[in-house]
């Protein structure tokens, strides 16, 4: 790219809605504390299910500034997105009221979209599953708009007047990384200067709990919910479902610099691969995830020693944890033993597509605060997961570059790097 100045993207605002911590600072305090936010499900009676626990958000949309109309017409996942985006925009100091919002876009990730509304409305129109040929007369108004996940992107575009490109990315559990990656590409290619980018999921519903029960993917440690999410631990029994959202303001570097914005970090690498193997199964060698990691390390021009933190996918299934450990070795070699790695899913559960963005928010905050959050409940490490998974206690350490990875159904594998210092000059 000699002679051509590449457009670069930086993070200038962060908003988070997470279990055990609504809002960016509460979220960060929670994950640093290593205190689990997992409890017995309260939003419906989980009695009939194998896994009866989840990481729920204590979220009041009105308290977070949503209007009654926004609340009425949107699913919980869109409400999370509106609240997180408002916090991120405020944090960024952007005045969208006066800016040229034709250059402001929206990219929201979500694995399952409006799943709560989808099921609740079905229960109504089908009369509790009695009628297959359902009666739309009993449906909420604007049912179609509420259910298509793209409406959440519309809600953000409308709220913030964003007239640039808008879309929802729905690559399952890598949606959160891929949505920020999509925003990065649009900024690099000059299609937008600012992207409101992140991911949201609110999947704690009977159908979602039942479907993960059916494949025995979620933890049945119902009597000790706070101990149930234990990535990389020998006593783990599956992942714990969560919900939440993170939205980042991703901004073209010169745009951010010219307005004197506070810059958390630069997005220095993004890559995705697919394993082409199985919708839910993972090959133990971790090659495809490893290829994504190699790719982002090359893009960011980093060696393993440069990494101050790796935010693991760390879902807490045996299959994932071993696959992921193999992928790090494949891509980074034995030097990866020196890098602190952790999974915040140990504290806030696995919120499907949303978690990738929440973990990117954690990477930005780890860089900003000089703290690596711990992996909670990691008391008896799986001998096959023998890297430094930062058990139990947070560590104060300077983080110059943070890597995060995601792995999900469909075989999708993604990786992203955030870097503290934006290097001036042509890339």
């Amino acid at each position, binding site marked *: *790219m000699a002679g051509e100045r590449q457009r670069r993207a930086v993070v200038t605002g962060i908003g988070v809605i997470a279990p055990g911590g609504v809002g960016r600072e509460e979220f960060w305090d929670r994950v640093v504390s290593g205190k689990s936010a997992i409890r017995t499900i309260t939003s419906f009676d989980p009695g*009939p299910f194998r896994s009866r626990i989840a990481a729920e958000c204590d979220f009041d949309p009105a308290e977070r500034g949503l209007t009654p109309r926004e609340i009425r*017409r949107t699913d919980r996942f869109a409400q999370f997105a509106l609240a997180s985006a408002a916090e991120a925009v405020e944090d960024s100091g952007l005045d969208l009221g006066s800016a040229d919002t*034709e250059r402001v*876009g929206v990219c929201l990730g*979500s*694995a*399952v*979209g409006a799943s709560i509304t*989808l099921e609740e409305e*079905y229960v109504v129109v*089908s009369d*509790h*599953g009695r009628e*297959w*040929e*359902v009666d*739309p007369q009993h*449906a909420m*108004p*604007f*049912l*179609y*708009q509420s*259910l*298509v996940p*793209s409406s959440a992107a519309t809600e953000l*575009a*409308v709220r913030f*007047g964003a*007239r640039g*490109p*808008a*879309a*929802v990315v*729905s*690559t399952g559990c890598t949606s959160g990384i*891929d949505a920020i990656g*999509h925003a990065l*590409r649009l900024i690099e*290619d000059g*299609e937008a200067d600012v992207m409101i980018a992140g991911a949201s999921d609110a999947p704690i519903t*009977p159908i979602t709990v*039942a*479907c993960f*029960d*059916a494949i025995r993917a979620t933890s049945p440690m119902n009597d000790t919910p706070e101990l149930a999410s234990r990535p990389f631990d020998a006593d783990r029994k599956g992942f714990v479902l969560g919900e939440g959202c993170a939205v980042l303001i991703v901004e073209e570097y010169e745009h951010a610099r010219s307005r004197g914005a506070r810059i958390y970090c630069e997005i220095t690498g993004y890559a*995705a*691969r*697919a394993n*082409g*193997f*199985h*919708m*839910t199964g993972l090959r133990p060698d971790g090659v495809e995830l490893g290829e994504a990691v190699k790719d982002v390390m090359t893009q960011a021009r980093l060696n393993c020693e440069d990494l101050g933190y790796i935010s693991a996918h760390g879902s807490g299934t045996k299959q994932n944890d071993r696959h992921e450990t193999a992928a790090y070795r494949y891509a980074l070699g034995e030097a990866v033993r020196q890098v602190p790695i952790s999974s915040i899913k140990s504290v806030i559960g696995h919120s499907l597509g949303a978690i990738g963005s929440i973990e990117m928010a954690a990477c930005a905050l780890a860089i900003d605060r000089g703290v690596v959050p711990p992996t909670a409940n990691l008391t008896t490490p799986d001998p096959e997961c023998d890297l430094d998974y930062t058990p139990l206690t947070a560590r104060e350490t300077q983080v110059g570059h943070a890597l995060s990875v995601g792995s*999900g*159904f*469909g*075989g*999708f594998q993604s990786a992203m790097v955030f870097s503290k210092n934006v290097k001036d000059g042509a890339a």
Partner: protein
Amino acid sequence: MSVRRSVITGIGVVAPTGIGVAEHWKRTLERVSRIGPITEFDTSKLPSHLAGRVTGFDESAYVESKLRVQTDRWTWMALAAGRLAFEDADLDPHVHDPFDLSVVTASASGGNAFGQREIHNLWSQGPGSVTAYQSIGWFYAASSGQLSIRDQLKGACGVLVADATGGLDALAQARRLIARGTGAVLVGGTEAPLSPYAMACQAGRATLSREPDPAAAYRPFAADSPGHVPGEGGAMVIVEEAEWAARRGAPAAYAEVLGTASTHDAHHPTEPAPDHRQLARAIREAIERSGLTPERIDVVFADGAGEPRLDRREADALVEIFGRRGVPVAVPKTATGRLSSGGAALDLSWAALALAHDTVPPSVHLTAEPGDDLDLVTAARENAGLRTALVVARGEGGFNSAAVLGLPESGRRTV
């Protein structure tokens, strides 16, 4: 820096117009509506009983039985359209480096019938009745995931949800992947909403046509247009980097993808924008990014919402950019209804085929008068001298996307 050009070398169609590119084009030219009564289930509780239906699609010819039980009809159509596209491009994905290949699909509503059945069973029979496949059959990424696995497409894959603009946004993403080194991308979208719950969701849409006569139910740009008719199906196309295609000895390309753009009205989640400004901007930006000016656009494939206010906005945008009757406006989707994410993908197939055949495809049940603002194409126009085509798409809530295709450098494909 060498420019990496994206060319369309294969088209796979599973749509109301037919299965496979040859049947699709032939039946498009027959100028017969494929909209008819829904017979799959009892629609008596619905305000509308019409749809563009895919008939004669035998999924077992494309999807093995084990995979069929794990997937929804929308994914069957994607798997079939994907295989047809690979065959049309004479591309065997298994002989290439899998990291050179990707798939990007658009989906607005996921696995409708599959998801309804599982939720229905849960509430009528309890958690034990939910199958292991609910976790992989219903969600929006199912089609991309299954295509990636079947065809060993292991580069960066994608899934875009932007209602009816998704197909064009997926094309834009494919182009970004190719610009960054990917060799070939399977891209497009399908939709399968002809099941009771999905149609009940459509029932509340103000833009849904309540007209019972199939010949009158979907007539975009008509003064008395009653709304839109939904439909099922879509298309997948193979987009390749031009030199990568040449190296493997690919057949002549249908078209080159010259430019894409998208905007959002950011006006109101359920009310149409008061003006056409953002729609016009998406069109203008796509033309500019193609290195063209509006005079160089030879045909427009309109969004054709079918709702009078939305049609007015689109007509205003086209008149503002191209002048009154400044460009032929094709609406072949009048034969199929609106296929949501599959619709923009199907329009891409028509645009690419129009360039290859140098023929603007016809519309059905539209009338055109010399005094109209738009030069609506009713009968097919052969030997039209087409060098470029613009595709316009809009999605519920205010999404606007546009894409410009042009003749490939190698010239018109001999068909």
